């Protein structure tokens, strides 16, 4: 299938700003799904609120655009009811880890077979550039005119600690790696988290003097390194990319099937 067959052209043009990283992520999500050969009917995409969450409308799957922060809770209901479907959640950093932080850690704890794609642009774009829980200390934002004094989460560490069984990080510069990781995350039976560093030139870039979209993407090339690389040892400030954890563990829906077996045995 061509990439274009996954798109609802009726609903274009999309609303993202020129240079936004989210289109790159959408592109590579499609490539990953195309590579896996999963039927469009077998994919449910659930999102919350924010720029990244608008992806659902543009893609030709079963799409559920919900309320701010709660996509994983809706997705849990979908997945529990139809475990055979692939459930993929594109989420923004504020959506996933601020208002939706509780749902995020509990979905990870259950290890329910859902793929969470955290598109981390370190800012609230839809509302015009406020700091997010991933902005970090010293960042300029419309609600941090004297710079932010909030520390940021490390999505990878948080996800691993909460119990996710597949955790990875990549960027909008590393598109081949992105498509590959997303494909593996979808295949993984358990809760998978993929953090994708995605540029917001309109707000984060401009407020923090990080240049235009190209310069921001280039910074991902310069400031990141493969997990466990020699470069990381020499320069600890580099951000690691790659798959940090990939383990087969008891999956929630499979475990619930066992509950049903136990309950029906007791009944009959």
């Amino acid at each position, binding site marked *: 299938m061509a990439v274009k067959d996954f798109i609802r052209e009726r609903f274009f043009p999309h609303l993202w700003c020129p240079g936004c990283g989210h289109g790159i992520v959408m592109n590579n999500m499609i490539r990953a799904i195309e590579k896996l050969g999963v039927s469009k009917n077998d994919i449910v995409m659930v999102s919350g609120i924010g720029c990244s969450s608008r992806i659902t409308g543009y893609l030709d799957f079963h799409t559920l655009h919900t309320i701010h922060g709660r996509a994983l809770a809706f997705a849990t209901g979908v997945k529990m*009811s139809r475990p055979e479907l692939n459930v993929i959640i594109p989420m923004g950093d504020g959506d996933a880890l601020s208002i939706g932080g509780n749902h995020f850690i509990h979905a990870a704890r259950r290890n329910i077979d859902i793929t969470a794609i955290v598109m981390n642009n370190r800012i609230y774009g839809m509302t015009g550039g406020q700091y997010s829980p991933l902005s970090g200390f010293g960042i300029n934002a419309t609600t941090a005119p004297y710079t932010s004094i909030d520390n940021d989460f490390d999505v990878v560490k948080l996800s691993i600690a909460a119990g996710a069984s597949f955790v990875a990080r990549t960027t909008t510069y590393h598109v081949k790696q992105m498509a590959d990781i997303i494909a593996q995350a979808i295949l993984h039976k358990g809760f998978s988290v993929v953090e994708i560093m995605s540029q917001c030139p309109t707000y984060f870039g401009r407020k923090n003097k990080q240049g235009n979209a190209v310069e921001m993407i280039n910074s991902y090339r310069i400031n990141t390194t493969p997990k466990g690389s020699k470069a990381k040892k020499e320069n600890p400030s580099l951000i690691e990319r790659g798959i940090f954890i990939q383990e087969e563990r008891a999956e929630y829906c499979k475990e619930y099937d066992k509950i049903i077996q136990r309950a029906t045995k007791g009944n009959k």
Partner: protein
Amino acid sequence: MENKIKFVQGNEACVEGALYAGLDFFAGYPITPSTEIAEILSARLPQKGGKFIQMEDEIASMCAIIGASLTGKKVLTATSGPGFSLMQESLGYAIMTEIPSIIVNVQRGGPSTGIPTHVSQGDVNQTRWGTHGDHAIITMTASNHPDIFLVTVDAFNIAETYRTPVVLLFDEVVGHMREKLIIPEPGKIPLVERLRTSVRDGTDYHPYLAREDGRLPMSDFGGVHRYNVTGLAHDMWGFPTDTPKVAHGLLRHLVDKIENNVNKIARYKEFYLEDADQILISYGASARSALHVVENLRKKNQKIGLLELQTLWPFPSAIVREKCLKAKYIVVVEMNMGQIRTSVQNAVEHPERVFLANRIDGVMINPTDIKNILRLIKGQGV
């Protein structure tokens, strides 16, 4: 075979009604006085291949049942006041996206944490206007276990018919009280199943284009039709729009589909109303005390009757008005500060004849409380 005559709590009667109606999926969070519903369903649902999940909070519970409903399942969550407050945003989402779902609120004293283990009917107006924005909603209640069973089945049927969430508003007294319940044979009460689209694979399906009869056939997530569901104002494809005409049409549709069917949705019971010149209007546990008073005073040849409301929203104004035409006075009996009393005043011809008999102290209103109000109205002193 399982015993069909049971001695159970009202919460269990609700569970039996939900299972009879075909419940497949429950998500919830423990909260007094509704917890028994979750506990019992955690055992019963997997026995029939259904699913139960205890979510991280009530927000997540409401969201999860909406997700499950979209896959074609019949869904339920149960909570009490504080949890119901948390559910308001997603309740609005279910209204906007027209997802059949049932929310049980077993009321306790409020506001805030209130009196968790004591009775109240203080959430009546919250069920009406708890979520933001203009909307219509259906809220039903009952005063005894056979009726809890019936309105629960009814709620599932109505939710499917009108593609809408339905709130079942019970209270601590009927929720925890034990009395007899006879479960009807399967098939005795007709069930409304999901109306699914007849549009075939490959043909454009419009999830939000109403048929001529106003109903919107659904297509299960995971089926052949892939469409978008959003809480944003949306067009017939379910795609976001801010076109004024479309936004207007959507809001009118959401309200009209319920308000235009108010008499069809209205459930009520009447006792001794034919010749009554004193009318009590009540619902839930309060209606038990009201009926006690009515039967007592009938023995003393007083022309008194009871109108017991089972549908609170949309408020059955025309029915209340008609039933109260001959009343010299009307006493609304409820355990709040007059939440239904206001609607009754708006409905009847003589609002000045409407009085309130209430309690707000966590104690069930008793027959003496009501009799005292009746005596005061008649100038007899207490």
